[in-house]
């Protein structure tokens, strides 16, 4: 465990906990952004520069803005003292159970002790070539999905016309 | 086509930019403390008291009638009347202000004091750099600071000053004429009385003569009244 990894991982997990437990929704969204940025840092630690910067571009630049807009558009009119969670202990115990299972599995497995090979030469060019050859079908499907999602989001969120209901 | 309007606008602004360097006509800015525009004749800012003689305090036209003090909308004028009297420009005995203060921070330069003054004694100045570092003392202007000569008034507001001078000259002429008429009337009355007395004396030379000097003191009494008017 290196010091940069410890710092970034601590930041990521801490901000993730904050994102899930804070009362103010905008604070939650801002902590979530910090989590995303921390994850990008972890990707950089793993020599995945391209994915790391894509993560920042997509999540910090776009998804967080989307979330923030949604929060502001659904400004809650509920009383302030109402609890923000429902049956917290059930959910948390499920999550802790899941974590313990996974952690035990990871720690028990010999794969976990693996040390990384010397950093592979990742060039954006080969990435693009793979996208255009081996992964061209997933890419096309993805394009279709994104178009469909965009259209769907627009239609769902579009205001009903007067008297259409 | 889209963009031609933008280009036209940019040419226009470029013309302005270049033009402002070689064409001084374009620059309307006056760099104030160094450059000044001569003040307009109609400009007005804060009143002053007009005086006619060399010694400002002796020649103030103000007679402390307090009309301006009463009329002032923000109540910024403070006047204390004198106990004694002195002769004004017409030779009439008048009161004069012992204290005449205007609060600069309250005055709104509305010119109402000038409008109501029957003596042409208070006028509007054009001086506008009145700021002061002394917040409490410096903004209360006393009569020594307020007094300015009629020449100053003629200089800053020539047209108004001419009207004002004419009005005063008419007043003075009236006063002179009145004094002259008084003197003549009195002289005439004295002459009449004298003639009457002589006639009476002629009619009754003895006995009534003791009453004859009665109208005499009226003639010398009129003489000092006419003297200052001359």
């Amino acid at each position, binding site marked *: 465990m290196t010091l940069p990894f410890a710092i970034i991982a601590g930041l990521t997990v801490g901000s993730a906990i904050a994102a899930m437990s804070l009362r*103010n929704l*905008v*604070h939650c969204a*801002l902590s979530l*952004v910090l989590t995303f*940025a921390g994850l990008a840092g972890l990707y950089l630690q793993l020599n995945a*520069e*391209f994915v790391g*910067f*894509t993560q*920042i*571009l997509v999540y*910090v*630049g*776009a998804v*967080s*803005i989307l979330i*923030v*807009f949604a929060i*502001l558009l659904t400004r809650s009119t509920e009383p302030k003292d109402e609890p923000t969670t429902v049956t917290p202990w059930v959910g948390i115990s499920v999550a802790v159970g899941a974590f313990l299972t996974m952690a035990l599995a990871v720690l028990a497995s010999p794969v976990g002790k693996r040390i990384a090979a010397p950093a592979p030469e*990742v*060039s*954006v*060019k080969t990435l693009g070539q793979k996208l255009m050859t081996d992964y061209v079908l997933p890419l096309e499907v993805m394009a279709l999905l994104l178009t469909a999602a965009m259209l769907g989001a627009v239609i769902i969120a579009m205001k009903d016309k007067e008297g259409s209901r | *086509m*889209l*963009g031609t*309007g*933008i280009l036209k*606008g*940019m040419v*226009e*602004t*470029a013309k*302005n*930019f270049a*033009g*402002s*360097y070689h064409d001084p006509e*374009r*620059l*309307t*800015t006056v*760099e104030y403390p160094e450059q000044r525009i001569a003040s307009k004749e109609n400009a007005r800012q804060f009143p002053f008291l007009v005086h006619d003689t060399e010694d400002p305090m002796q020649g103030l036209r103000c007679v402390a009638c307090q009309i301006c003090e009463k009329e002032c909308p923000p109540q910024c004028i403070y006047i204390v009347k004198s106990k004694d009297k002195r002769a004004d420009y017409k030779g009439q005995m008048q009161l004069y202000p012992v204290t005449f203060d205007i609060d600069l921070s309250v005055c709104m330069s509305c010119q109402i004091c000038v409008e109501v003054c029957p003596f042409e004694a208070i006028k509007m100045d054009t001086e506008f750099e009145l700021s002061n570092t002394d917040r409490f003392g410096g903004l209360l202007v006393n009569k020594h600071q307020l007094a300015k000569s009629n020449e100053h008034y003629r200089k800053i507001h020539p047209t108004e000053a001419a009207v004002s001078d004419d009005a005063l000259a008419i007043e003075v002429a009236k006063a002179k004429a009145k004094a002259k008429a008084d003197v003549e009337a009195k002289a005439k009355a004295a002459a009449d009385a004298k003639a009457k007395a002589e006639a009476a004396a002629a009619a009754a030379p003895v006995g009534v003569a003791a009453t004859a000097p009665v109208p005499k003191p009226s003639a010398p009494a009129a003489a000092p009244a006419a003297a200052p008017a001359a």
Partner: protein
Amino acid sequence: MAELFAKLDQFPVTLKAWLMNLLQGFLPEWTLPLVSAAISITPILAVFPLMFALTTVIERKGLGRIQNRIGPNRVGIPLTNIRLFGFGQFIADGIKSLIKEDVVPRAADKVVHFLAPIALLIPVLLTYSVLPFGKNMVPLDLPQTGLLFFFAVGASTELSVFMAGWSSRNKYSLLGAMRAVAQMVSYEIPLILSSLTVVMITGTLSLTAIVESQATVHFGFLHNWHLFTPWGLVGFFLFLTAAAAEANRTPFDLPEAESEIIAGYFTEYSGFKFAIFFLAEYLGLFAMCGLGITLFLGGWLPPVNIAPFTWIPSWCWFLGKLSALIVLFIWLRGTLPRLRTDQLMGFAWKFLLPMTLINLVVAALWHLLANNIPLVARWPLGFAMLAVPYWLLGRSFEAKFTKREYRFAN
């Protein structure tokens, strides 16, 4: 002679190498990368904020002249009569903003309110780390992801703007932040798409490689700047438009329209925090201009490959081009009025986006037909392919002047 100029050109690089050599003797091993980074950062932190400071004065003077005014010309050296044509103004402004009271609204979200200017300035400064300022002068050379880094970091400023607007608990702030975020998200697409043409042609995301790809020479003297191709010419102007919107410059300065919403998202900031917003905004503009220079204007390359031009140091070329673009933006600010929100969005989606997509197609054709059609024929062809849609798309944005009918005023 040429060697001397080459030495002058590489002076910052040699200076850094000399300093590192000097420090190697008595500094521990692990501090050396940090020291090297610090030496690289220092000139950026010195040059660009200074440039910002001078730009504020030049902008005010230039706008003044455009409006037939004189502009600031008073502040010079204190206690003397030396006025320096008003160029002491930025020092006075800086001192003023430093010693002004920092007012935080009582209802504000204090933590977010405090973090917003920092979160804005840091990404903006980070964008400078990949720009090649001169030959061999790039603080952080990312051979695989340079341009992506720039856009990724630049995109994260949107959130800081939102933080500033939301935390102030002020309607004007929130309105300004919402306008800013919507505008930045919309204009980011044409911005990225217009720079994508360059990536397509050069086949790399590294900004240094993009500059070097423009070093080839046409007709024996003319450098192959991407501006000199039809797609580059159009792409540059599309890029510039989108960059102006990203940097909230005048025709697109709705987020801080002072006549409508006071100062937009930084209405509730005062003192030094306000100065940081101001600084970040201008530094963002400079970074955008720097990227435009790198992508389309040949970076630090001179326009022609002839002796007196090549003698001028490369970083001087970069800074000169940057200054020229800044002057262009000031000129535009003095010329154009502000758009309306619907015009702004319509322009991004109905004009810029289709144009950038067509530009991508033209660039692809340019690249494909490079060996088949000679340059003389390719140029007009590409230009025509862009000019026709420009004319068609632009028609709907032209102002239609009709005589206005007044109902009551006549």
